[in-house]
């Protein structure tokens, strides 16, 4: 009889635990120690990256000379913009060629280290104020070692850290329109301030012009950008809570893993 009671208790407790596990968001169950970070500046200082940087700098210097040559005598702003765009594209293409394979290798090394240390997410060191596992040395070892790092078999486990790709959110028409409008306003204000600065006679005048300029931008930002920012923040927070995330960071600060909620956010904002 006692045995039966005891068995029932065990079964009941097991049922409670299973129930709790089923209803609690899976990510909350994850230990926060599964967050790692990498010092990207340290990665960038290893020979392959410094060599690639030098290569790109040399190419840029050549492009700069060609650019100056092509811009000689060109006064049409549209033509100037077209030429500038062409050169930017050339530089971006070379950057992809030079850094693409290196980034890919680094990404595999980071994924491999994360997998071996059971980390669900790795972020940039700049945003890690306290705690987390520093995996920089392990990644450097893999990158400096002979041969290519071996990619992990498993995909990253679910993480309590979410992320959004802000550039995708900014591309939503209403946000893009607000941004374009703000940029135009800023350019107009800048041109006006520059004209006034040329005529300014004293430091006090210049200070006043600068203050007016800053104030005009702040007002415009408050009027046009702030409501959209509130809306975006609120949407991100709602979705994060629904998905059981502890916090959400920008994709630019994320290096590996994490839970992408960008699509949910863009859908909610449309």
């Amino acid at each position: 009889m006692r045995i039966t009671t005891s068995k029932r208790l065990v079964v009941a407790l097991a049922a409670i635990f299973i129930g709790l596990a089923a209803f609690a968001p899976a990510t909350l169950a994850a230990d926060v120690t599964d967050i790692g970070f990498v010092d990207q500046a340290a990665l960038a200082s290893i020979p392959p990256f410094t060599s690639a940087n030098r290569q790109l700098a040399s190419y840029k210097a050549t492009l700069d000379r060609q650019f100056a040559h092509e811009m000689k005598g060109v006064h049409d702003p549209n033509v100037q913009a077209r030429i500038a765009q062409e050169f930017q594209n050339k530089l971006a293409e070379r950057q992809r060629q030079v850094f693409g394979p290196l980034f890919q290798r680094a990404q595999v090394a980071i994924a491999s280290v994360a997998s071996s240390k059971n980390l669900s997410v790795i972020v940039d060191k700049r945003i890690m104020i306290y705690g987390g596992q520093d995996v920089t040395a392990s990644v450097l070892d893999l990158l400096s070692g002979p041969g290519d790092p071996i990619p992990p078999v498993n995909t990253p486990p679910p993480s309590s850290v979410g992320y959004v790709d802000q550039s995708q959110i900014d591309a939503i028409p209403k946000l893009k329109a607000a941004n374009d409008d703000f940029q135009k306003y800023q350019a107009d204000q800048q041109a006006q301030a520059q004209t006034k600065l040329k005529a300014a006679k004293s430091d006090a005048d210049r200070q006043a012009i600068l203050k007016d300029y800053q104030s005009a931008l702040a007002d415009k930002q408050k009027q046009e950008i702030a409501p959209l920012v509130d809306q975006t923040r609120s949407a991100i927070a709602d979705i994060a809570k629904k998905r059981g995330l502890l916090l959400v960071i920008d994709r630019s600060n994320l290096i590996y893993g994490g839970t992408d909620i960008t699509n949910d956010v863009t859908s909610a904002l449309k």
Partner: protein
Amino acid sequence: MAGVACLTLAACAHQTAPASSFATPLPGDDGHVGYVRMEELVKVHPLYAQLAHLDEDLQALQLKSVGPGIAQNGADIAAAERRLQHELDVAAERTKKALGDKQQEYMKREQAAIDAAIGATAGAGRGGAGIVAGVAANARTQAQTAAELAQKNFDAYRRQVADQSNAAARSLQRSLAERAARTYRAKAEYLAKSEADFALSQETDDAAERLSLRTKLSNLALDDDSRADVKKQLDALDQKEADAIAAMKNRDAQTLADLQKSVHDSTQAELNAEVAQLRKRTIAKIDARELETRRQLVAQLGVPALGGGASLPNGIAPDMRTRLQALHKQYQQQFNADASRTIAQFQKTRSDLTRRFQRIAGIDADAQAGANKEMNALQKQRGDLYNEMVAQIGREVKLVAQKRGINVVVSDVVAPAGGVDLTADAEKDIESLHE
């Protein structure tokens, strides 16, 4: 775009903590992830005033240096450029004349020195010097004639090579244009044939239906309504065919337009490349001939033909030739030094005018470089200060996190969700640094 990204992120980070955030220590904090709004903490840091000051300086500098300045219209720019070009031409002409005058002057001096040396060595008094001077004058005349002839031959050769090059370029242009026209024509013919085939296939496909409709129409017993209905069907059939053919023609017209542009661009690029090569070869040929002409002239006259040297007569004793060559070298060096100064003056004028050219085009290189340098220095100063502040804030946040049993703290979060906001606690600690 990046603007909104930054603004959005910054603003998210700046928001006051939501009501549900943990403002005071809670037992549930243990083991959780915490976060801080770094920009808010930076604002309460004792060094923030310095940082803000640097930001203002940077913004002021940016306003001063970036942007188009006072815009000039196209006509103003063109007029200013014409003025500057005129100044440059005048300066170049002045320099050329000054160099020519100097060359003449040094030649005269050298010739006088040579005459004096030959006269003194001959020891023939005025009569001997006169003979030598006569020989030298003859030699100069011969040299001048030879040089003129060589120049004439060279000019003729240059014209001939240039004409050949131009003819080759024209021929190449014709050939490329014909090839482009053939490509275009072939495509146009192919598309026209496709259109004709398509029209025929349409007609064939609809032939049975059309015949049936026409047969119905030929039935005299058909009532008016039915006749109208059949006519309508026949019209619809015609219209359907006409629409399909028109759509195909439109597509083909677009294809041809695209092809025309693409063929034009590629032909032009090919022509440019070929013509550039052709010109390069032509210039190389002319340069080679010029060099050869000079060599021949030097061999013929027995003296360097270039560089402002005076001419030496043939048949001079070796020791005298050596002496005279030393004299020539001396005058040559003097001339070169003098000419270098004149050229340096011209270079300075040209640099000045180039800067003015750039300024009217909105590219004030020196000013921009100066401002950029200053901005870079300020940016670095700002970056160092900011890093120092963030490091100190990090230490304070770490203490707060340890006190509250939090394992991990991050900054720059977009949305807090379930993390613990440590900003308020950290703010208190950082503010105490002021005391």
